[in-house]
């Protein structure tokens, strides 16, 4: 195995393209190193992208924030601007692993794994985040909700890698929240999860919303019906009931040792309801 440390995105992309299938990207390494050591993956080449420009930076851009592929969870949690603008995304990132994992794990890595239970992904999808992809033909953007195509599968093509995620600008009176269920209080994988992003109108009703669910299907899903259910409301009981119903209808989980189909479906609705209320309170506080 070779360890490569390219200096430009073009160089990284070139290495990936010339070694398609045999090269793996290294940023935080909290998943890659586990796979390497267990023999799950045996690449010929490790391409460390942490040293490319901007990889470890959180940069203001067009009123939003661009988060580099090498930025660890703890750094996102320390960023006051991110906490104020996208508290749901930040709390989702901070739920990944222990303090030690937080020192290394990245939001981009969490996304690129393509896992349906990845904590930061429902929050990113609810936020309308966009992944920046570098490749042999330069860079392109992909909405996070379109990035994962199935368990462990993404839209990345030969020679491509994700260099950053962009969190868009926020109007006043807008906020988000993320909740997950795990059977213990810390360090576990979501049995079900929900990210909700709410923007309020001047009259205090929901002007627009985005609702995303994790761990209740082969990939994290955006649930437009759930967003429609609360749009125009102040989260009164009928709107909440419609939100829950839409989330349950959109859920198609598997049953495994961590939860049955029925349990996951019910919990997804409950979490979406609670996350919507938290996002609503936070949005009102920023009105």
């Amino acid at each position, binding site marked *: *195995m*070779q*360890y490569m*440390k390219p200096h430009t995105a073009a160089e990284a992309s070139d290495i990936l393209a010339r070694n398609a299938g045999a090269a793996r990207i*290294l940023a935080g*390494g*909290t998943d890659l*190193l*586990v796979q*390497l*050591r*267990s023999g799950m993956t045996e690449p010929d080449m*490790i391409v*460390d992208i*942490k040293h490319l420009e901007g990889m470890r930076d959180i940069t203001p851009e067009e009123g939003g924030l661009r988060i580099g592929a090498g930025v*660890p969870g*703890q750094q996102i949690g320390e960023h006051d601007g991110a906490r104020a603008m996208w508290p749901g995304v930040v709390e989702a990132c901070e739920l990944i*692993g*222990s*303090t*030690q*994992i*937080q*020192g*290394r794990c990245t939001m981009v890595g969490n996304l690129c794994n393509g896992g349906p239970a990845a904590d930061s992904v429902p929050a990113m999808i609810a936020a309308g985040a966009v992944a920046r992809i570098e490749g042999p033909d330069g860079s392109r953007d992909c909405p996070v909700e379109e990035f994962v195509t199935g368990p462990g599968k993404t839209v990345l093509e030969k020679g491509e890698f994700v260099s950053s995620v962009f969190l868009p600008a926020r109007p006043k009176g807008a906020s988000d929240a993320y909740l997950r269920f795990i059977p213990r209080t*810390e*360090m576990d994988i979501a049995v079900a999860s929900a990210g909700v992003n709410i923007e309020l109108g001047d009259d205090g009703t929901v002007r627009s919303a985005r609702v995303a669910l994790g761990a209740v299907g082969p990939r994290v899903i955006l649930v437009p019906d759930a967003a429609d259910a609360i749009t125009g409301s102040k989260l009164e009981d009928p709107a909440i009931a419609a939100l829950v119903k839409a989330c349950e209808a959109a859920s198609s989980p598997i049953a495994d040792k961590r939860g049955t189909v029925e349990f996951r479906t019910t919990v997804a609705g409950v979490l979406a309801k609670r996350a919507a209320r938290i996002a609503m309170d936070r949005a009102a506080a920023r009105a």
Partner: protein
Amino acid sequence: MKNIHVSTTINGDEAEFVCAPEETLLDSLRNRLGLSGAKEGCGTGDCGACTVEMDGRLVCACLVLGAEAEGTQIKTVEGMAIGEGLHPLQQAFIDHAALQCGICTPGILVAAKNLLERNPDPTDTEVRYWLAGNLCRCTGYDKIIKAVQIAAADMRGA
């Protein structure tokens, strides 16, 4: 397979080593540099026995490549005592019986030191969450949390 030459700083001293590309920082520290304080427990980032600090952040050395240490600042449990003088955390762990077999102890000491540098007066809950990635199968955590709080009080008073 080409070995890699790495220049880094460990506990404030410049250090150099040569490692294989797939070698973990944990193996480099233990086998190349003779720093055997960090332990291998699970090897998958779950137990925290290999905790070291890298550029001010806690990491599991088993999930870092030795090659990634190039140009970084690493701190390990070996850097905690100054000469014969133990760090207040080390002294508190001894005085208050916060260890039994000792395998988890170096990782917990490094993690607790990093916490107290960020937050000199944490609540018990904050200590417990911070140390959730450091597994101990002997003491049951209560004495560990108490020792961290006693050391924290000691350090605030000093």
